[in-house]
Structure formats: structure tokens, C-alpha cells
């Protein structure tokens, strides 16, 4: 039997719903434990649906061969992470740090977008140049 990820999410949702139902039915109808009663199972079921729709391995298996570019280094991503911390810290240290953080954040975000565009361009170029070299990676 092959069990996909969506089934796992569904089982997880069922267990959460079970706990919620037990609480609602037997114990505390007056206690609004919204997380347990509504949000948790709903999020888990949403995860199951999202996985079923978006992450089916079959979709990848039938997709045409396409180069997958893996960037080993992404300084802009590191910059985004550092910048978020700088911005938050700047709220207490001083406006100057907040502004520097915001600037770094924009710079990092731009860099990440640039990387993604370049990656796609490189993948397209590789596909056009050497389609016969595609293989399982």
C-alpha cells in the first residue's frame, strides 16, 4: 500500500479532531478552546488538501526533463534574515538601525528575486542547448 503525504495530514487532522470532539462532547461546551476545537483540525485539513493539490509526486514524475539549478550560495537570503533582526532591534536601538535594516531588507529581497530570475534563465538556456543530456538527477 502506498501512503501519500496527504493521507498523513488527514490522519493528523483526524486525531486533532478526535481530541476536540472529546472535549466538546464530554467536558466543556462552555470553554472556548478555539485552537483545539476549530483551528487545529481546520489547519491540518487545509494542509492535507494543499498537499493533495500541490505536492503530488506523480506530477513531478510525468513532468518533462528540465534542468534543476541549485544555488550553493545565496548572500541575499542571508541578508534578508539579518535585516529582519536589524529592523526589529532598531525599533529599540534607534531609528538609524531600523532604516539600515529596512535598506538591507530591500537589497536582500531584490537580490533573491534576481537570483531566481537568473536561475530560471540558466535552466531555460541549458534546456535549449543540451536537451539530450537530461537525465535523472
Amino acid at each position, binding site marked *: 500500500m*502506498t*501512503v501519500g503525504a496527504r493521507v*498523513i495530514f488527514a490522519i*493528523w487532522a483526524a486525531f486533532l479532531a478526535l481530541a*476536540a470532539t472529546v472535549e466538546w462532547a464530554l467536558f466543556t461546551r462552555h470553554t472556548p478552546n478555539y485552537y483545539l476545537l476549530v483551528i487545529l483540525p481546520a489547519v491540518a485539513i487545509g494542509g492535507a488538501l494543499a498537499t493533495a493539490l500541490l505536492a503530488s509526486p506523480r506530477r513531478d514524475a510525468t513532468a518533462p*526533463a528540465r534542468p534543476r539549478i541549485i544555488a*550553493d*550560495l545565496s548572500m541575499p537570503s542571508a541578508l534578508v534574515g539579518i535585516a529582519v533582526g536589524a529592523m526589529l532591534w532598531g525599533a529599540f536601538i534607534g531609528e538609524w538601525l531600523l532604516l539600515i535594516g529596512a535598506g538591507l531588507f530591500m537589497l536582500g529581497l531584490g537580490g533573491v528575486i534576481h537570483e531566481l530570475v537568473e536561475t530560471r534563465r540558466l535552466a531555460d538556456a541549458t534546456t535549449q542547448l543540451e536537451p539530450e543530456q*537530461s537525465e535523472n*538527477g
Partner: protein
Amino acid sequence: MSSVTITLSPRRGLLAFVGSTEHKVLGARLCIMAFGWFALAGTLALVMRTQLATPHGALVGHMGYNELFTMHGSTMIYLFAMPMVLALGAYMVPLQIGAADLAWSRVALIGFWMILGGGLIMWTGWFTVNGAASAGWYAYDPLSDRVNTPGNGEDFWIIGVLLAAFGAFLIAACILATIVRKRAPGMSMLRLPTFTWTMVVTCLMVLTAFPPLIVAMALLEIQRAHGGIYTVPNGPFAYQQLFWFFGHPVVYIIFFPFLGAVSEVIATFSGRRWFGYRPFVFSLLFFAAMSMSVWGHHLLTTGGVPTRFFALTSTALLIPAGVEYFDSLATMWRGRIRLTVAMLFAIGFLLMFLVGGLSGIWIASPPLNYEANGSYFIVAHFHYTLFGGSVFGMFAAVYYWFPKVTGRLLDEGLGRVHFVLTLIGVNLTFLPMFVLGADGMPRRVADYPASSGWQTLNDVATAGSYILALSVALFLVNVVLSLRRNIAAGPDPWLGQTLEWATTSPPPRHNFVSLPAIRSFAPLLDERDQAAGQRAATAGASELSGR
């Protein structure tokens, strides 16, 4: 996935440390960072234990002590334990499922820098006028508001927790996406190795439990700056609900991956397939769901939660935990057990967590909870689960996977001494705390009266903490010596069962040149069994032809 994999800009050195998106570098980086925080938080614990070695200890004042236990607990939970389990996941999950890399690796890199940045900001609180945060690792309001905890130290703590939680959330999302989307052909969900399964439930829990913490921290900061959030009727109670909705699951978020690592160690060093794989997986999912439903037992003494429900769910945790213990013992039963250091730590993990788990059942009972609440009994309980359990699991994982990560074996002799010291240290430190708690010693006090009769047990605990520090120092010595000794481990020094042992040590950039056939959760064991079967058949055939 059909593809040609092209690597861009492979680098080493400082640039790689700052910006590498490779999962192995990310995992190693998280691990080193987490261990650094572990050392710092452990040093704070030593100062606290020294303070308590005598009644009316004068090493630190009351406020200083508040800062110490706040920063110790926060650093251990948010900066050591959470990143450490994610480090294991980031490094090992792609290897175990036959993937070349982590999904959304840029996002994981952002997550790493947010955790590191959060930790640094949290610790800069020591340099502020009023010192570091001092309202405990859960910062209850109104204790943590600006009136009761003035100064920027608490603000830095809130920002630090917020960043660390968000960073961990991002990395967990990447690990889960990797498991869902990047499994090798043949690696169905019910063929995932046990460690990877524990990472599945861990990531599910992180994705569910961390958003309330992030919200709680953001609201707490707004409360400190402007008020009006938790000052409404039942506001402080709302904060406690939000916090513990994260605070209890995080214990299991820390526990599950180490349980997974221990299960791999036990199966490998028992020379047997993990017993009861499917019940184990099912019980993990049940365990995770139940542990999302027990947060209210931290609030039993408030009278504001349905005590019977939370006592029921808390006690029900025994069922999946029992399944996992049974599977562990059944795997070892009649196995060809090799008592390596990793195996010793794995067995230590089972024993120490058992003490923590059983004392947890004790305090899940509302009447007993009222008696133990706020005492050293609670401190003993959660240190047996978090330190006695998880740190043993961490060292089992480190001794097991160190050869895979570095290509070098750790010294087994030094490792055994390390294990013995850790075992003695943990029990000397935390066992007396059960007695102290039962005798009424409250937690979070910087001193106690000489007439209380608590000094002897406190001295034992203090001695134990120094033995623990010695054991950690010995581990570091072992790492340095073993790396300098440079004895090559080879691809599979332990006769492992899962895919990470099918590649070189350390693995190449894309992890695998080729993958073995995956027919179960232990593909390498399948191969060995098949080869043994073929050898037996050949031997049988040649014997028959000889007659």
C-alpha cells in the same frame, strides 16, 4: 524528478558559512550554533547551582538570579534545543530520503540567520541598564510588563524569542516540504526511516504550535510599549493560554527527533529491523496530536481550564509513549547488541526519559499538580525530560552520525567516560530536586534559610552540575582529538540500515552517485539480507552438487 542538476558557485570558508544554502552546511551551522548556546546556558546553570550551594548564597543578588534562570531556560529552549533538532533534520532528512537538497533552501538560510540574530539580540540584554530579561522563560504578564520588568532587556528577549521562533518555523517548513516533495523513487511515506518520521511529526507540530507563540510575543511587546492588550479582563490568562499552546508541544518537538535518532541507533546496534514500524508511525501521529491537546495542564492551578479533560489527555500520552518504549525493547530483544557509545546514550535516553515521563504522569493529576506546582519537583521533572532525555538522545545522535558528517570516528574510550560522567551528573543534579520539591523548596529562589535542611541535597545537585560540565568538556576534547587523529570512518562504519550510509562520509554535494533499491524503511538492511540469502543459496547449491 527528471532533471539535470547544476550547481552554482560552490564555495568554502567564511562566504559558505554566511550564505551557503546547502543542507549539510546549514545543518552543521545550526548544530555548531546550538552547541555554542548550550555551553553558554550551561555556564549560567553552573552559576545558579553555585549560588544555591549554601543557604543565603552571596554570589549573585535576587535580580541577578532572576536574570540567570530566565536566560538559562530561554537559551536552552529557544536557542539550543529547537535549533539542534532542526539541525539534525536539515542534515539527515535529505540523506535519509535520497534527496539532493533541502526544499526552499534559501528560506531555510533566512531562518538560520533569524535564529542566530534572535539569540544575539536576546543576549545583548545583559548590556542594558536594567540587565537581561528576568521574567522567566515564559514571561507571564503582568510580571513581564514595563512596570514590573523595566528596561530594554525584556524587550530584547521578546524580539529574540520572536525571531528564533519565526526562524525555526521557516526551517521546519522547509524540512516538511522536502519530505513531501523530494523523496527518491520508491520512498513512499511508509518507507520513510523512523528518524524522518519523527521529523514529520515534529515539523507538523512546529507549524501548528509556533504561530501562537509568535503572536503572543508580538502582543506582549505591544503590551509593554502601549498597554491595552493583556490588561483587559482575563488578559493575563489569555497570554498563558497562547504561551502554553506552544510551551507544551515544544517539549515533544524537542523529544521526537531525538527519539527518532535513538530508534535508528537501537536498530543499527541491535542488528535488527525496527520492531513494529507501522504501530510506531501511527503512535507518533497520535502522540503528536495528543501533545497538542495537553497545554492546559500547565494552567491546572489557575482553575480556568477544564481539569478533567487536560488530566485525561495528559495521562493518555502514556499509550503512544508505551508503544514506542515497547518497540525499542522489542527491537533489542534477541538482537546482536553492540554496546557502542551511541548505543549507551540511546539506552540512557530511554531510562532518563522514563523518569521524566513517569513524574509527568504524577503531575498530570490535578490534586498532585496543586501540591507540586511551583516547587523543585517541577524543575526535576522537566530536566529529566529535557536534559536527561533529550541531551542523551542528542549525544546518541552525535556519536552515531559524527562519522557520516566528518568522515572521522569519535574515540569510543573517551566516549564511554563521557557517558558515565553524564549519567552520574544528570542523576546527581536532578534526582535530589524531586526530594527538595516534595519537601517544599520553591523554584526560582536565590537563597533558602539555613534551618530548612535543604543544603545537603542542594550541595549534591551542585556537585552533579559540575560533573555534567566536566562531561561536556570531555566531549569537546574527544571531538578535537578525534578530528586531529584523522582515522577515516568509511561510508558505513556501523552497518547502518538507512540511505545516508549508502554514500561517502562526508557525502558529496548532491549526496548520492546512485541509490540502492528502496523496498522498505531499511533499504541497506534489505540489501544485506538479500546478499546473505544469495550466499546461503549458493552454498546450499554447491553442497548439493558436491554430494
